[in-house]
């Protein structure tokens, strides 16, 4: 439920920060003459290439899976998917209990201040995302947030929460924004219930509608939103099972430039006892690297283990 609101916030942030604002047009200029070699048919830099025997250092098995979503037939950067990979399950299925997660020790009653202190201790900082600076977060209209929150059912009350700065790095098409948030609910069961509500087919369609409206209303008038799709996303986290969430793909056209730019917004949640640890990644053309998301979620989890709730 709050994942939807968070995803919407991320999408809106993207719309406000990069989706067609003054700096987009220059970035859609033709890329420098460094188009690396010929692209063979069906050549897709990404998951398929990982199975190429000549690959230099086979990256770890992609721990991120994104079932095909409408409108994602031929993304410039195909999502990494691992059919049959451990941890993969049909979209819409109920969130599994993360091993050990309900056993997170909560020795004292949860209070707003303790929850906020925990959130502060866990959050990402600029040091965690090399090259990033603290960018101003965009404000999502409260009405849209409420609307998105309803996509997954009723939002459970939060005891305390905190979020990182919007960590932005790169320029033009290379720009990506990464952030995290921590929300402490009443107990692990409430978290599980909260997360299971947002993954249904109806929930995803709902997010698509709300996001499309939000992006259309907030984006720069010089760009045109060509479509929004939402797909479930799973990321394996070392020692903590897997995080689940959404991958939002928005296709944006720049009239006159004849360019279509893809915007990816990933919003994934790792349950940790009574807390939800969220990671958001927004990026042009291709999603934030799966490995980066995996490492940052692992880092957040390690910090959570190191700090008592």
């Amino acid at each position, binding site marked *: 439920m709050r994942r939807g609101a968070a995803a919407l916030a991320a999408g809106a942030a993207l719309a406000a920060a990069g989706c067609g604002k003054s700096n987009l047009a220059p970035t859609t200029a033709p890329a420098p003459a*460094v188009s690396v070699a010929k692209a063979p048919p069906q050549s897709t830099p990404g998951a398929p290439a990982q199975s190429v025997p*000549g690959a230099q250092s086979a990256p770890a098995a992609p721990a991120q899976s994104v079932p095909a979503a409408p409108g994602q037939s031929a993304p410039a950067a195909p999502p990494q998917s691992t059919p049959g990979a451990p941890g993969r399950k049909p979209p819409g299925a109920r969130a599994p209990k993360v091993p050990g997660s309900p056993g997170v020790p909560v020795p004292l009653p949860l209070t707003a201040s303790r929850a906020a202190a925990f959130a502060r201790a866990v959050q990402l900082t600029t040091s965690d995302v090399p090259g990033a600076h603290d960018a101003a977060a965009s404000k999502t209209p409260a009405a849209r947030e409420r609307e998105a929150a309803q996509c997954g059912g009723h939002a459970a009350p939060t005891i305390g929460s905190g979020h990182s700065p919007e960590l932005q*790095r790169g320029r033009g098409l290379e720009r990506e924004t990464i952030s995290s948030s921590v929300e402490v609910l009443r107990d692990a069961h409430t978290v599980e219930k909260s997360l299971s509500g947002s993954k249904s087919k109806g929930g995803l369609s709902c997010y698509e509608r709300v996001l499309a409206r939000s992006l259309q209303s907030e984006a720069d008038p010089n760009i045109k939103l060509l479509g929004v799709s939402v797909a479930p996303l799973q990321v394996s986290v070392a020692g903590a099972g897997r995080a689940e969430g959404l991958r939002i793909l928005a296709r944006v056209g720049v009239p006159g430039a004849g360019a279509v730019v893809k915007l990816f917004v990933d919003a994934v949640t790792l349950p940790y006892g009574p807390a939800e640890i969220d990671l958001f990644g927004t990026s042009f053309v291709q999603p934030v690297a799966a490995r980066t998301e995996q490492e940052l979620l692992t880092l957040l989890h390690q910090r959570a283990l190191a700090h008592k709730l």
Partner: protein
Amino acid sequence: MSDSDGDQRPPRGPGRRRLWALSVVLLTCLGAAAVIAATRSHSSVRVSAVRCIGATPVPEVERVAPREVGGLREAVARALPQRVGRLYEEGTVSSGVAWSDEEPHPPALSPRQQRPAGYEMRWWAPNGDDVVADVLVFASPAQARRYLALASSSRCHEQAVRGLPLHPPLGHNLSWLNPDGALQADVFFARGSRVYRIADAPAGGSPEAVRTRGGLDHAFATIDVLACLLPSAHCTAAPPAVPA
């Protein structure tokens, strides 16, 4: 049916069944042995490279405050600009990376902990090649030059062949069989106390197949051009575009 037909039928009787079962077991074992041999050959290459370089006094990169790592990333991020390739991995590295091809380190638990002054980014190029860019910062220009000499030499590199590129100035080319058993083309150059490396492991096929179809030449042409995109390369003439 003829005898030959009978040979094509599944074996009958306990003797033939046993023989059949043994054949299946034997084939399975042979298959498993082949897999193990292949895996071992790769891991043994890595182990021997690490051992070899462990016996050589290779300068190590400096350690820097976390805020300085961003500058290192900036120094190599332009190697494959504007999302031409798909960035799949990045992070800090140590100086052994020129031999071990180890994956970049994950972010440190403590935001204040010092990090190695080496940064690597890895992309899948549109043609499926694996392209890598590194920057390594040493205590002094002399250490950087020593590292450059070692890293671009055939020492501890399997099947190494050295060369001198047209670009960037004072660059060094090296082809070698990396610890994953793939052919790889590297270009190194030093600027002050920094050493830069751009590498390309051509996609597809065995090392022989890559050589036969000119994949290595193409990889060298690619990395020499990409190296000139780095702000520190100081290429005097505009390099040609990456070959199609």
